[in-house]
């Protein structure tokens, strides 16, 4: 039962969603299924939050390595939850929008979460620079082509690319760095992307068929 019911739900919903695209009278069935998906997604938030608490409480109680970070995570999570749930500082009270001006939730989001996430993402620039220094070496023909492409893209994504090749006459505009960068993105890169996308699409189709036919069961926890 524990396996048959989820399997039945997946197979039925999967076929309904597929037929709803091709058979107009069944369109509303597909919408209903999508509405249920919306409800399930909300429950996933509870599961996610619960799992986060469980994992970090365990780490703190066992004093595992770097348990101090778990304390910060727990305090941050619970503080945000408390402020958001009870709409602390919200002038309109509990009935007002969560992100109303002056609400603590909006302040925490703007002055704590936003700068922290932006900082994490910005660190990419440092790692990209270090990785480029080590990886882009003209060891062979392929590496040299990659190196040249990286050069063109890096310069083409800045106004410097325009300045450097401004002297190139318009009749040879393809030789101007920004145009070369666009060509690399629109031709070799596009061809590669299309190939990857077609590969992914074929994989998705085959996996979907396995799900619809009830062959694929690994998502239920075990393949046996």
């Amino acid at each position: 039962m524990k396996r048959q019911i989820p399997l039945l739900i997946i197979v039925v919903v999967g076929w309904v969603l597929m037929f709803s695209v091709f058979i107009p009278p069944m369109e509303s069935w597909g919408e209903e299924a999508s509405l249920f998906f919306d409800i399930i997604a909300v429950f996933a938030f509870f599961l996610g939050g619960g799992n986060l608490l469980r994992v970090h409480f365990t780490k703190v109680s066992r004093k595992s390595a770097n348990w101090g970070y778990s304390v910060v995570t727990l305090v941050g999570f619970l503080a945000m939850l408390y402020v958001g749930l009870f709409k602390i500082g919200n002038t309109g009270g509990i009935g007002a929008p969560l992100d109303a001006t002056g609400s603590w939730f909006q302040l925490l989001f703007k002055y704590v979460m936003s700068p922290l996430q932006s900082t994490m993402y910005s660190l990419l620039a440092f790692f990209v620079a270090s990785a480029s220094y080590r990886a882009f070496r003209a060891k062979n023909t392929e590496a040299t082509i990659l190196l040249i492409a990286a050069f063109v893209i890096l310069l083409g994504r800045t106004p410097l690319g325009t300045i450097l090749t401004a002297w190139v006459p318009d009749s040879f505009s393809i030789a101007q760095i920004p145009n070369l960068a666009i060509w690399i993105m629109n031709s070799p890169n596009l061809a590669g992307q299309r190939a990857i996308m077609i590969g992914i699409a074929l994989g998705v189709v085959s996996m979907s068929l396995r799900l619809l036919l009830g062959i694929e069961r690994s998502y239920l926890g075990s393949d046996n």
Partner: protein
Amino acid sequence: MGFVISAIVIGGGLLWILIRSLQGKDVDRRVVFTFIGITVCLAVLFQLKFGESATPIVKAAFDKIEQLPAGSKIVISYDFDPAMAPEVHPMANAFVRHALAKKHKIYFFSLWATGQSLLEVTVQDILKKEFPDARYGIDYCNMGYKAGNEGVLNVVITDIRKMYPGDVNGTPLDSLPMMADVKSLKDMDLLISIGGGKPGVKEWVLFAGDRGGIPTAGGAAAVSTPLLYPYYPRQLVGLLGGTKGAAEYESELIKRYPQFANIDTPALQMMGPQTMAHVVIVAFIIIGNVSYFRSRRKKVTNG
């Protein structure tokens, strides 16, 4: 003056590293990190700015909004988080400014929970300050965040009210004048998704734009943009990629609309640090190759 000082400091440092590389000394990654840090700091400190002009792919998105008759319905979806915000928030703000300047109606959506709070920043900083005449429910409305990713689009493509009985504040959609002749996304004239993850531009193309035959434009973080090129120009009318795309849009907006000459242009400002950082990365790649060829030649000579 700022550019000259930056060039002397950074150029001198790079020259020193090049000489050390020629002497066979390897460059520690901490040196690379320090250089990137100093470069970005100098560019920010001296507010280095470079000129920009829109490339065809950005101009196509701009022209699409430009060509729509006043009063057209435009969806702008905030599908991003604070991590991506420095890159894509300027795009969102530029789209909002442009659409309101053209007297279009904006329907804000968000498929990311964080998008709703970031939209509030646009509402407070752009909409209310620069367009005080824009009225809620008539010129713009906020549908807020809905969980369910593609599932949300799957429903709103045929019936918005089924997924959104009310707007972000719970106000029934039927009480908003701008929703009177809107049943589904198919009634929209343009869809714009701004983001760089999932769900994002790709999902809007696949589940809404393509399915409903609605023109779709997008703005994405630089790392995600290459994945979206296959959709341009047939399924995406235009695409803004990273800070560069945002800066191009801002420059085009200023060029065509003189009233925006003195607005805050974060993307154009960020292009200074980005340009300098790219130059330093290019310099490090050259230094890395010089060092590599030198060590290889040494190995060959020593047998």
